[in-house]
């Protein structure tokens, strides 16, 4: 694949079979066509991550844009030994979304989304059909948590809920939520290490 900075190639047949890791390798070498292919292969997945945290479409689109710029910049840092390409990209995208949702805003604390998009329904990873080895292991550990505590972790992960929002949702004081989080995360860490 040649580097074409001007006109990123569209749908070259070879791209369909390229693994995401190969694409990241080529992007690290500034291959714009590989970037375009990577975007097409992964943008709906990453948008699924950021749009659940940022229900307002413009904010989600901005976060996705920032995430892909960062993926372009950092592609050379991807290390397959530390996780899948998608996990690496999703972490970048999710961090962008969290930075946005945790920005301190003047005025109203909760700028309540006018459109609570139905697309952003609750995710139940336990119902996921395709599961990587990593997901299977994590789900096994999550299942060892009490149902309520598991829900807290999953809502924080998928919806980016703050401790305050979780406290409201579960009718508990914020310090209780914090304690739950710490215990649950410690339990997950120990379970994953075993």
């Amino acid at each position: 694949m040649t580097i074409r900075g001007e006109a990123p190639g569209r749908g070259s047949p070879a791209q369909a079979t390229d693994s995401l890791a190969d694409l990241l390798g080529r992007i690290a070498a500034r291959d714009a066509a590989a970037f375009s292919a990577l975007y097409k292969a992964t943008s709906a997945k990453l948008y699924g991550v950021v749009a659940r945290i940022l229900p307002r479409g413009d904010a989600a689109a901005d976060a996705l844009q920032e995430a892909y710029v960062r993926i372009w910049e950092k592609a050379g840092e991807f290390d397959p030994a530390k996780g899948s390409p998608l996990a690496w990209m999703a972490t970048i995208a999710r961090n962008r979304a969290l930075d946005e949702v945790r920005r301190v805003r003047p005025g109203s604390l909760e700028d309540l989304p006018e459109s609570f998009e139905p697309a952003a329904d609750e995710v139940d990873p336990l119902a996921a059909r395709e599961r990587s080895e990593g997901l299977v292991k994590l789900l096994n550990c999550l299942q060892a948590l009490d149902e309520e505590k598991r829900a807290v972790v999953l809502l924080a992960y998928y919806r980016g809920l703050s401790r305050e929002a979780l406290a409201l949702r579960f009718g508990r004081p914020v310090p209780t939520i914090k304690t739950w989080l710490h215990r649950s995360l410690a339990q997950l860490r120990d379970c994953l290490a075993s």
Partner: protein
Amino acid sequence: MTVTPDDDFAAAEYALGTLDPSERAVMAARRLREPDLDEAIRAWEARLAPLAEAAGPIEPPRDLLPAIEARIRSATPEAPGNAAVASLRRSVTRWRAAAIAASIIAGVLAVGFITRETTREAVPHEYVAVLQKDAASPAFAITVNLDTREFTVRPVAATAPPGKAYELWLIDPKIGAPRSLGVIAADSATRRANLTQYDRAVVEDATYAVTVEPPGGSPTGQPSGAPVFVGKLIPVGP
């Protein structure tokens, strides 16, 4: 792992996303300077990352890819400002050299260096920091006089995004939430003496962070987002 249990929980909550905005900003600044903490955050991100697989896909707006491609084209190495970066890199080398020289030869060289390069007056207890996003992109240089608590920030390769301002923050666990040191100019040196209210130990140990804010600075008195540039002071004076 070498982080404290408290830091590991903070890393876990950072990765999960449940820290409040100022806690998140503090962690974002600290991870750039503390490799062990950064490693702890990455470990937590890796533990949780498989969950992303289970999030169902949602089609993003169609016009996004061309916008992203335009941005990455303009961000590729030939972007303007590189000369300034290279020049700052040389300055950093000189500062490091100055710091070492100061400790070895009783500051004679370093004082001469400061006189020429930074303040035009030889003052003791001068500290400098380079505020940067990563090792390759320094943006501001800050000099602090620990005796007068006066500081000067100079832009090196910084350009504020249109309609936005840069605000400088002092971040240190000893003072709790980040404290604003005011909006700083992106095109000229900013000199202030508002570090007087802080202990010497705070001024010396703190992380100096720059965030992007609305014109006039953060309306809430807290950083609106994660810092874009951070740095810690190193001594130059005798």
